[in-house]
């Protein structure tokens, strides 16, 4: 529909969306100035090193294997929880989604402490697949629930077998959800540090981290990060091409009724086996490991006061990040779903760029942004304290060519926030923005654009329509996005380590502090608490993204 319509994003929406894109591009600007600090020749030299190619091959291989495995596991999980007549499927779905609540570095430590021989490529594959398959499972399960089962009945009546219907009719329709989930998985794998570090499998993120820490070679780190940005851009472009027009706005009402459930013995047995494997590997190993660490704790008393403090700090950071991220993601999500144009898709894509970057790079970019602001305003004392905090970044200062005054203006605003909560929130916001944008966009696309047209014809302006119709209808998606952001912010490690206010200790930083020195018995309480606390937002995400789909998205019309 509307093939030839010229779409213009209304200004009240475009301005915050552009602001969001500019914020999201801060790390890319930082990386560009940093990478080219020693001239373009140096960039090519670094990239064309055989070691760099080796890294590209290793990272690509890991990304490909984990993405493929996540797609298989995620799709099977979605099928089991939506199409097989098993009792308590809603609970099963939440259980399947729970690995979202386990940070990859924690589950890596759990596997290593149980099976030290697993170190390396396959260990990283197992840990990352467990951490990532929910990103495929949730959207696919939602899509499966939303499909109209009459189509399948028609196909069967036209002589197709159950299997042919599955491959020829159902899968093609959920393919957009599979590719969108696959994209998130691939970006996650590219940016993950915890799992590959714990498994000692050398990828981009690990080397980038090393370049910042050991060699103080920020230029090399930035160049490698730029390769990651390029990889992210390629993936995002491939995905949007694969998605094609399938994501188009849905018209009309009606969600399939009387969904068909398979109860054939083969399907049920297969589903049970699949369920047990998924839960056992994704949830069982980490949980049992952590509990066994707790068992060792009996010799020592648990520092409950510290744990409680860490819960509060984690919760506060998670909550603030969720709120800030939603506020920034909302205009981007609305623009991308309701005002499709090159402009809005460019804005949307720019928010995805940060997703492939390791948290460490984003944290450093934010610090850097803070430092530039400080330097520009000659707050010498704060400047020096920032230098203490991250000496490596000072290398960048001579290379500052603040050509982009927009960024500069934005950066100045950050100055008073350094080492305070807002900067940490900004850093985390940059990482989770794409997740929130994707969730909000999908949920807006679920509702019919005709409803908004009706609102406009009744005299509600663009912003009034968004406030009175679009946002209320997308509330489940917005809630899911908020819960997802909160969940991830509570797990997030590198940005928290680097940007947290002095004296703050979250569950994630505590786990890291003790597990890097292999003091697993001290890790136990924090790890278990983190898993329990993050399980709540995980359950919320699951029920809002999948379980709500069973309700018709617009009123039925049968007389």
């Amino acid at each position: 529909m509307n093939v030839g319509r010229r779409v213009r994003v209304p200004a009240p929406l475009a301005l915050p969306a552009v602001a969001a894109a500019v914020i999201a591009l801060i790390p890319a600007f930082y990386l560009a100035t940093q990478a080219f600090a020693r001239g373009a020749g140096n960039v090519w030299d670094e990239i064309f090193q055989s070691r760099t190619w080796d890294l590209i091959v290793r990272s690509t291989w890991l990304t490909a294997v984990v993405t493929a495995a996540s797609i298989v596991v995620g799709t099977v999980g979605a099928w089991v929880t939506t199409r097989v007549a098993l009792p308590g499927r809603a609970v099963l779905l939440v259980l399947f989604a729970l690995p979202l609540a386990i940070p990859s570095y924690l589950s890596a430590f759990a596997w290593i402490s149980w099976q030290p021989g697993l170190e390396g490529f396959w260990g990283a594959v197992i840990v990352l697949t467990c951490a990532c398959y929910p990103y495929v499972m949730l959207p696919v399960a939602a899509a499966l629930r939303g499909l109209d089962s009459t189509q399948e009945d028609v196909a069967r009546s036209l002589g197709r077998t159950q299997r042919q219907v599955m491959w020829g009719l159902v899968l093609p329709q959920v393919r957009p959800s599979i590719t969108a989930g696959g994209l998130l998985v691939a970006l996650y794998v590219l940016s993950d540090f915890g799992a590959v570090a714990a498994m000692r499998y050398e990828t981009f993120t690990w080397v980038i981290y090393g370049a910042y820490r050991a060699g103080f070679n920020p230029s090399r780190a930035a160049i490698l990060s730029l390769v990651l940005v390029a990889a992210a851009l390629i993936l995002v472009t491939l995905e949007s091409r694969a998605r094609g027009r399938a994501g188009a706005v849905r018209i009309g009402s009606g969600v399939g009724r009387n969904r068909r459930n398979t109860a054939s013995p083969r399907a049920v047995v297969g589903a049970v086996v699949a369920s047990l494997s998924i839960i056992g590997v994704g949830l069982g190993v980490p949980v049992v490991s952590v509990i066994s660490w707790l068992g060792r704790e009996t010799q020592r008393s648990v520092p409950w006061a510290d744990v409680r403090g860490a819960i509060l700090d984690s919760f506060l950071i998670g909550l603030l990040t969720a709120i800030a991220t939603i506020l920034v993601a909302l205009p981007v999500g609305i623009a991308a779903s309701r005002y499709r144009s090159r402009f809005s898709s460019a804005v949307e894509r720019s928010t995805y760029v940060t997703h492939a970057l390791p948290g460490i790079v984003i944290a450093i970019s934010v610090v850097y942004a803070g430092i530039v602001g400080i330097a520009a305003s000659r707050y010498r004392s704060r400047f020096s304290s920032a230098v203490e905090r991250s000496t490596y970044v000072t290398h960048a200062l001579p290379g500052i060519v603040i050509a982009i005054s927009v960024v500069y203006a934005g950066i100045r605003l950050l100055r008073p926030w350094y080492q305070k909560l807002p900067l940490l929130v900004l850093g985390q916001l940059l990482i989770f923005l794409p997740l929130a944008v994707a969730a909000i966009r999908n949920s807006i696309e679920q509702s019919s654009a005709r409803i908004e047209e009706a609102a406009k014809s009744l005299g509600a302006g663009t912003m009034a329509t968004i406030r009175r119709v679009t946002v209320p209808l997308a509330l489940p998606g917005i809630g899911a996005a908020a819960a997802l952001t909160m969940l991830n912010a509570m797990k997030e490690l590198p940005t928290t380590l680097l940007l947290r206010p002095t004296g703050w200790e979250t569950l994630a930083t505590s786990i890291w502090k003790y597990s890097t020195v292999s003091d697993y018995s001290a890790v136990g309480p924090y790890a278990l608490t983190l898993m329990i606390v993050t399980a709540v937002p995980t359950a919320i995400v699951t029920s809002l993204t999948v379980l709500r789909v069973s309700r018709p998205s617009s009123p039925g019309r049968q007389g």
Partner: protein
Amino acid sequence: MNDTPALVVDSVSHSFGALGVLEGVSLAVPRGSITAVLGPSGGGKTTLLRAVAGFETPSEGTVRIAGDVVVHDGRSLVPPERRGVTIVPQEGALFPHLSVFDNIAFGLKKRRGSDAEKRVRHLLDVIELGDLADARPSSLSGGMQQRVALARALAPSPALVLLDEPFTALDATLRQTVRDEVVATLRREGETALWVTHDQQEALSVADQVAVLLDGRLVQVADPVTLYREPATKQVAQFVGDAVVLRGTVDHDGVHALCDTGRVTLSRPAVAGPTDIVIRPEQIEISANSVDPNSPSCDGVVCSTRFFGHDGIVDVRLASGFVVSVRVHATLLPAVGECVDVRVNGPVLAFA
């Protein structure tokens, strides 16, 4: 009373890429009247409606609403929310998160207070859903939803209400009832409406004026009776109502013609020579005849009949071999294979 038409569409054209959907459409909708835009699917009806509502900006032409220019030469001058034009979409598109009351109150300037309350209550009474003010749209039947959608569109007292095939989603029996209610409401409230439909029966029965849109062109704008009796082209004749088309020859006098059913009178003079003769099925009268079906003096032979209860359709093979469909009273339904006399009542149309 102001004589400015509620809507004036002047030479509006629009295309999607290379595909032209509207070509030089001009139409005026007088205040307080119902105008139906009748056309087959894909004929450009919905595009015209969306152009008036402001969701599509036509590439050429002018649209005036209550005298104000809202679209001129490819530029939208007034956004949808300030046009004073409300829509009743095909699927109702009620706001699922609001109650029936809040749905109806949505377009009011002041949604709280006694005036708003009074307006919504009045409309709830008009659509006879006074008890369901607090209900959620999802708990209503399709017909109720459409009535709420109409009340919602009427609440802000718009200059014009657009109805986009509002009853296609309803089943046939319900459709008739809801349609009657909606028309009664529009009439009682003195509303101006532009009603898009592909159903010629609906267009003829509800509208003061019917505009026939075929392939993006307005072929004829007329009141229902004129449209049916004097269609401008053969296509209109065939689209509006059933039509029997026969080949024939116009006499030299220009007011009679000879065709397979014999000599007929033309409703308007035509140029002598070969022509298409259009006859409405109800103009053709058949009567039983005891003549042997194989004899040359037999006008036609019944080859099939369809019985509808109150009436029926009889297919008669004329002596020339051409088959015409005739509508007859149920009591007069002849048997298949019988010979019948065929007579044409009243003047017929000729299209050269």
